[in-house]
């Protein structure tokens, strides 16, 4: 393989891993609480900037800065639950869509006032180090992103499928009323879901910072790619979100290099719309109730 191709594939995988994390946060919230969170992109942006604060502004060592940023994002998820989710819960789909978009606008502009419009570039734990992979110089940060994303997905899998808390979360997702009758604290599971969403998007934000610039407008483009990823993978499928994210990341990087750099986002949306038309349940999707 040519060096350029290896580089493109690795960076595509790294970007795709970020989209997968964001897509997972979106799916998790949608499955567990029934809310389509159009502010997911702003979660990533806030995560990125909280890391800017702990890493760049407070100059903490990374071993303290990253956990502190993630803790902040866990609280952010819990606050979002209390202020936004509770009032919007059980409303019509369109109310939730517009409501979460509006709160996204609030978050974006509050961040603009807090952090300003000049982009930051937080440093990577690996600096500008490069690693040799199949004779190609690969940024160590890209490999770090892929590894961390794998770790987070693994932890999420263990939590959901191997612990009693996970079983309770799945019960709430399947049938909220039945779960409540079984004595499961449904509201507590909702809080937990939003906290996990905060952690997943926070991780995505921390990882994205050193790859691109930290900019208050970064949320929407990332969310749009994550939407495309989950449509391609299957709206309610965890492996689908991972595969979809990776496919979108690869399509973006390879499309920009070999097809057209100006239309790279257009390529992604074209694939998404084709999937909606030809295979609306996505690659792994099973439930097609609301689709066709």
């Amino acid at each position: 393989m040519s060096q350029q191709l290896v580089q493109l594939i690795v960076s595509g995988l790294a970007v795709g891993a970020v989209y997968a994390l964001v897509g997972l946060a979106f799916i998790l919230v949608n499955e567990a609480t029934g809310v389509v969170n159009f502010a997911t992109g702003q979660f990533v942006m806030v995560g990125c900037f909280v890391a800017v604060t702990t890493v760049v502004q407070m100059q903490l060592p990374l071993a303290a800065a990253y956990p502190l940023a993630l803790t902040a994002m866990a609280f952010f998820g819990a606050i979002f639950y209390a202020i936004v989710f509770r009032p919007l819960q059980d409303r019509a789909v369109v109310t939730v869509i517009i409501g979460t978009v509006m709160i996204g606008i609030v978050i974006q502009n509050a961040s603009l006032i807090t952090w300003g419009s000049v982009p930051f570039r937080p440093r990577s734990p690996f600096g500008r180090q490069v690693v040799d992979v199949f004779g190609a110089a690969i940024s160590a940060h890209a490999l770090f992103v892929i590894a961390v994303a794998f770790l987070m997905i693994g932890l999420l899998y263990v939590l959901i499928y191997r612990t009693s808390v996970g079983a309770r979360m799945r019960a709430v997702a399947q049938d909220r009323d039945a779960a409540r009758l079984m004595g499961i604290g449904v509201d507590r599971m909702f809080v937990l879901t939003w906290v996990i969403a905060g952690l997943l998007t926070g991780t995505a934000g921390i990882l994205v910072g050193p790859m691109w610039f930290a900019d208050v407008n970064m949320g929407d483009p990332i969310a749009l790619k994550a939407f495309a990823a989950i449509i391609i993978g299957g709206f309610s499928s965890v492996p689908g979100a991972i595969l979809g994210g990776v496919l979108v990341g690869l399509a973006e990087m390879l499309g920009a290099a070999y097809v057209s750099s100006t239309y790279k986002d257009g390529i992604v949306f074209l694939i998404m719309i084709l999937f909606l038309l030809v295979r609306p349940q996505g690659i792994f999707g099973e439930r097609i109730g609301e689709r066709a």
Partner: protein
Amino acid sequence: MPRPAVVASVALFLLALLLPATVSGYGIRILNLAFISAIAVIGLNFAFGYAGLITLAQAGFVGCGAYVTAILTTSVGLSPWVSIPIATASGGVLAVLIGLPILRLKGHYLALATLGFNVSFVIVATNWKSVMGGTDGISGIPALTLGSFSLGTDHRYFYVLWTALAVATWVAWRIRASHVGLAMIAVRDDEIATATSSVGVTRIRVQAFALSAVYAALAGALFAHMTNFVAPDDFALGHSIIYLAMLIIGGEGSIVGAIAGAVIVTFMPELLRDLGSAYLIFFGGLMLLILIYLPKGLFSVAAALGRRLGMARP
């Protein structure tokens, strides 16, 4: 709607004709923008308010109308009086082409597909420099003229927009009362029952979507000839959200509500100007509060107040 409310709305609308005499230049410009948005939102009311289609593509169709008339009057050299009807129709054609495949989708799937269309529109407009001008957009779009009399000033253009809005409202009212309007509402309320009454559900959906796009494209064309300049930013996804917010704030499923919502939301930045950079925080928060506490929109509150004051008979 109770008759006194209709009479009051019509009277208010006629009174608006006096506004250019009393309002300053900037106020009229904002009012013009509000009327243009009102046309797009009346259209959106067909797709969302009546047929229940969650579409995030309205700004894309506004852009379609704006760019078609911009290209036809600058590069091709047509008169705006010819290009505006063509631009308006082009919105409908584009909506049928897109709607036939994607209107099989529902709920947030439809929302995401239409969102994809709107984002793609902006990507194409930004990158197709030779035809759509890229980020620089298209400038030098001529203003409307009647013979040698220019309608280009904001005060004169107000009457053009007032007429367009009046016609758009009247047509919308006629469609709402026709079997097409009833079929749209029937599809939203009970799809299966409607289908068994031998009404083509998909055809009705596509009709509602195309109608909403025709109104959007008309609004876009009128916008292009007012600002004399179009650029991709004016038709970005955020504007589609604003159109939906206008409809919901005014009261979905109501033509008067659509107009009221458009006017209120367009003027809100002016009323909140003192907040400076915190304005969007307040705007987003206010929208959220209205969605939560007044889910039927401000118009429902006005109607309830009217009843309380004994304006309306039951």
